[in-house]
């Protein structure tokens, strides 16, 4: 299992590399959100897609060490369920 360290800015500019990186994950999606300061709509959508993919294949989706900013951003966009997935909501 690898942990994907999320960068400080998850904005539109990061969406394509983020998608490429996510597609390389073999099964589980485990992220470290400690550095995240901002999440934009497209990266949020990719997180949602990863969450749905994990649910579909019965694998793991988890955001560890989530920063306050990331938490606020996910909540702002209605992504509480992403927080609940790692018991941090």
């Amino acid at each position: 299992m690898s942990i994907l360290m999320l960068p400080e800015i998850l904005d539109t500019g990061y969406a394509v590399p983020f998608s490429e990186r996510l597609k390389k994950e073999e099964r589980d999606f485990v992220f470290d959100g400690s550095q995240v300061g901002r999440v934009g709509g497209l990266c949020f959508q990719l997180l949602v897609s990863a969450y749905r993919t994990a649910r579909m294949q019965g694998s793991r989706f988890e955001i560890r060490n989530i920063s306050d900013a990331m938490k606020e951003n996910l909540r702002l966009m209605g992504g509480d369920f992403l927080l609940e997935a790692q018991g941090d909501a």
Partner: protein
Amino acid sequence: MNTEDFTEDMDAIRLIFFDECDEQLTLLEEELTALEEEPGNGEKINTIFRCVHSIKGGAAAFGMEDLVRFSHLFESVLDRFRSGELSVNAESIKIFLKCKDALSDIVASFKNGASTYGVAPEITADLKRYLGSDVSEPESTSENVEMEDIFGMSFAPVKIEIDGPSERQFSIVLTVSSEFYERGDDVRNILMALGGLGQVNVQVDSDAVPFLSDISVCQSYLTWQILLTTEKSRESIDEIFDWCADDLRAVVTSVPEEPKQITVPSAPDVEEKTDLPVRKGTERKDSATVRVDIQRIDKLVDLIGELVINHGAIQSQMRRNKVPGDSFLGTVVTAQEQLIHELQENVITMRAYPIKTVFQKLGRVVRETARLTGKQVRLVLEGEDTEVDRSILEKLSDPLTHMVRNAIDHGIESPEVRIQEGKAPEGLLRLRAFQRSGRIIVEIQDDGTGLDPDKIYGKAVEKKIIEKDQKLDREEIYSLIFEPGFSTVAEVTDVSGRGVGMDVVKQSLQQINGRIFINSAKGRGTIFSISLPFTLSVIEGIIFKSEGQDFVIPINNVSETIIFDNKKAFHIGDGKYGYPYRDSYLSVIYASDLLGLPSCKKNQKICFVIENENEEKMALIVDKIIDQSRFVVKNLEDNYRKIDCFSTATILGDGNVAFILDVEFLFGELLKKRENSLEESV
């Protein structure tokens, strides 16, 4: 899409953002100027607020913090005026204009690749004075508060007043298209802005989001349902969507009584089943527009040019094969010519921009120049919607800027002098554009001191531009100000007065086939009139032959065409000839001599009486006239190299190239010949 493509796309989006900033800044200046006339017009303040808000929104998406920071501060102040808490007056408009200039500078700075920009502290201080104690919140600086608000790093909690008397609930169903993100916007900005209005409860419908293996990164699959509890009006909500163009769809409904759970319909359902107002981004007042890359329009203009040439080839073949004009083919070709002509005019119109884009920039030049010179100037703009070809407009900005500076620096008097002369302390500077006889006229008028012919004459003699006692009429004396090195002011100022300006102005205008005229009255002011063609892509001209070769002369340089009688031409000396014309005589130039062609003067039967912008005339002798028509202009330097006698070239129907004469150059050559004769005779 790979990372490289995406980066390219982001660069393109960034450019679009800067284009939009330019549009918003133009509108901002326009509305601020209008606000000076109507300080109580709340709609103007709303528009001004939205302009700043739009710039802030885009800047936030690109992480341009200094731009976001300043526009946020500006916007906060505007909000006070918008709410009626503060009233607009001359002082506030002055500060707003300074802020607009600062915004322009920051945008220009980021456009040029800078990542930071420091606004002059006095400008931010002016703004913060309006905010009073609100800018000094405990435990955080005002600037930190602003950035937190904007970037959502830890934005401030929303004030909730349960059971407040005016509190209302709104249900908002929000979807965005992929273009929304491509434009540099982000749904996070929208949600944060809504959060700024009150308490938000956001739910996202993610059922349409594909699994990772199938997802298209830039497509938006999410639908948000937002329940907003706010004291603000419905208009406040709409304003948030105003700066989102057409790629955002928000269905806003008021929830009148107890809050209820609203199911989120899919976007198409919303459109089909509801009569509720659907806000598709900014519903602009004007008609629908499409943003097209200017290079595509330029390409279209070029292609139509090729079509015109191609059509000319068909006509040429028809003439060669003696196909009658009233045959079926002849009728079809004539109808096609008309269609091509209309198509060409329409496409050229597409490339036309309102002169407003240049005029608006001059507002700032006027303010700065007035400030530097300590003068009071009221700028009046007229005919801002007059359209000019982009290629001309681009080259018009610099000469106009210089002329406006000159008008304030040298034309309009100081308030003290004006009062002594019985004038209002505030000088008037009027910029006016209109169409006349197929050309665009731009006037720069001031009510200042006017040109002093005696002073100009004396200065020209002193500078050895003219000989002492040289006879010149009033117009000729005025035109001396366009001579290189001419200046009548004793003191060189920060603004102008170095005497290197007006000759450059004239040269710049000549490059775009412009002419300049002066009308002045001492003590009452001056009008500079610039006459410009509508386009540089097409020229109306006469095609003629000289020694078997084809040439074109622009029709606006041809005063008259007469049959040339070689017997009436008289030799002056040194190979120079004169020719009687009405009650006077004209200098003669044989096209063959000028163009270096082997001459057989007996063939030369046509005389063009040509004139330059100073209305000087000369006779150009050619073999025969072929036709008068519109010619597609091809740049010589781009396709070959600069040739002195010719401004540009065109391709004829038979595929041959015809050079277009540079009439100003011909007059220059004539002048040189005169000077050489004088030197030789001395």
